[in-house]
């Protein structure tokens, strides 16, 4: 390639690069910088605030902050239940779709994707109202069967959010797994059938191993999203602030530190910590799930 052409090619990417520096690198750098400082009130708080370099003190505080680490743990535990359930349902639905005729599959696929078209905030609002004892149909339904459930109680609030996330996520994950299934060479099924394998056996021993990559990927995307969960608990907090307090998830703590406590330095520290946890978490997940393939 001629030298001048190379530079012209690079020029196409320059606007994006500039924007990336301004909207990504600069903010991250600024956050890291802020995380090393502490705001100090001079005198009796009358002389205004000065910034003092404190090194890694904020990080020490963050790592021993039981509210923050507790929220991380809470979300991780929740993810360990919700993500496998959601992916299992998505996998089963993808296998079902793969086993019916193309016409039937096409119709059901559209229906199953309806929740994915609904904005997250709206999905949360709808479910909160479904859960509501005043207007939702689920409480009377429970009463009818003799269960007096309260979807906003401390023991039910995570299952309530989990159901909402599962409902919202099944379609998207199903489409990804389904399109991976389309890549399985059909001759394999014929061969397995000639060998006397049942459909169930084919699904378990050929199809599921084949879509492993798609499952790892959807799992990883879900973990990244889950650690950053904010919208759903924020909306639940509107209804039941006693159960969903302002330190319910890591991002809620960060938001509160920044905007309610006015402690940007600590909020920045926690954001960097969360990024590190995310990075390490995704790396570990990737290593653990891809190890058996090697």
């Amino acid at each position, binding site marked *: 390639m001629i030298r001048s052409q190379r530079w012209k090619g690079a*020029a*196409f990417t320059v606007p994006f690069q500039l924007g990336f520096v301004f909207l990504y690198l600069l903010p*991250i750098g600024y956050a890291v910088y802020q995380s090393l400082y502490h705001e100090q009130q001079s005198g009796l708080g009358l002389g205004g605030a000065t910034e003092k370099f404190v090194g890694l003190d904020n990080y020490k505080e963050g790592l021993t902050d039981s509210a923050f680490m507790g929220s991380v743990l809470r979300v991780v535990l929740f993810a360990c239940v919700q993500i496998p359930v959601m992916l299992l349902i998505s996998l089963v639905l993808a296998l079902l779709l793969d*086993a019916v005729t193309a016409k039937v599959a096409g119709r059901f696929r559209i229906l199953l994707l*309806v929740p994915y078209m609904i904005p997250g905030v709206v999905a949360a609002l709808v479910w909160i109202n479904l859960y509501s004892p005043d207007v939702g149909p689920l409480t009377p339904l429970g009463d009818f069967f003799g269960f007096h459930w309260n979807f906003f109680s401390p023991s039910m609030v995570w299952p309530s959010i989990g159901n909402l996330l599962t409902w919202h996520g099944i379609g998207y994950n199903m489409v990804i797994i389904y399109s991976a299934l389309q890549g399985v060479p059909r001759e394999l099924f014929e061969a397995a059938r000639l060998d006397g394998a049942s459909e169930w056996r084919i699904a378990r021993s050929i199809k599921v191993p084949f879509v492993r990559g798609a499952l790892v990927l959807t799992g990883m995307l879900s973990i990244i999203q889950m650690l950053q969960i904010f919208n759903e608990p924020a909306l639940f907090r509107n209804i039941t602030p006693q159960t969903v307090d302002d330190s319910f998830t890591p991002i809620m703590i960060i938001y509160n530190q920044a905007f309610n406590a006015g402690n940007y330095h600590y909020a920045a520290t926690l954001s960097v910590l969360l990024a590190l946890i995310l990075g390490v978490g995704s790396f570990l997940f990737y290593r653990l799930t891809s190890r058996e393939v090697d």
Partner: protein
Amino acid sequence: MTMTEERAATTGKVRRLNRPDPAARSRGGQRFLLVGLALASMYSLFPVWWLIVASTKDRTGLYQSNGLWFSDGWHLWDNLRQLFTYNDGIFLRWTANSLLYAGVGSLGGTLLALATGYGLARFQFPGRNLVFACVVGSFLIPIALLTLPLYLLFSEIGLVDTPWAMLIPCLINPFSVYLAKVYTEATIPYELLEAARIDGAGELRIFFSIVLRMMTTGGATVFLLAFVNTWNAFFLPLTVLRGEENWTLNLGLYNWSGKRLESGVDLTSLVLTGALLSIVPMAIMMVAMRRYWRSGVTLGALK
């Protein structure tokens, strides 16, 4: 000829002749599959059905009638009138804002992403791999790590609480760049570019009159996904928009849903009707651009 082939031949759908032979499965098995899919579809659809039904009810109906069926009286028009007149029609303002941010922001972001994707896919230049690594690496950055410092930077330069605070971040979308690169690799052959160069076309001219035109399908997918993303955004607008005249639909609905607790005003009817309306543009986009977004969803996952 097997049954599938016959059916495919009669309906003209020969796309999936390699389907497993249904004769190999029992009828009962097939029925079992359909029941499973039907149950899952009901789970997917009933909240939407409930929302539609609820927005046709007045307050008494909402609180007292069966949630899954219409009550006496049709109050959808009343609810819509209330929605659009409440608080001097602020809901209309939020709708316009959402459309502005998602429409203009995504359009700009898509153009930028197409140029960047094309540059990355079809030119060798020093630093190319670094740029691409930044693009992919940024998928892992939590939104809080970007948004909070961005808020501080924006407030330094006086952009907080203006539409720019929403529009500018939309312009830089690494995921769009990633998609644009993949699409360029799939649709723009090197030979074509060489031929255009030999004919004496400049690089900009090649991009605008050849590349962009060939990338209509890819560009539509990128635009659609960016639009959906911005329409759904919550954390960014919550952080950078303070006054309600610049809010998005999501932010407005969030605020209304909190009113009951805060000031005892019950806006449930408005929230529900508003929620239903905020799905409409999304549904129109998705249905109109069905073939684009499906390829986008799967492509996005196969990185």
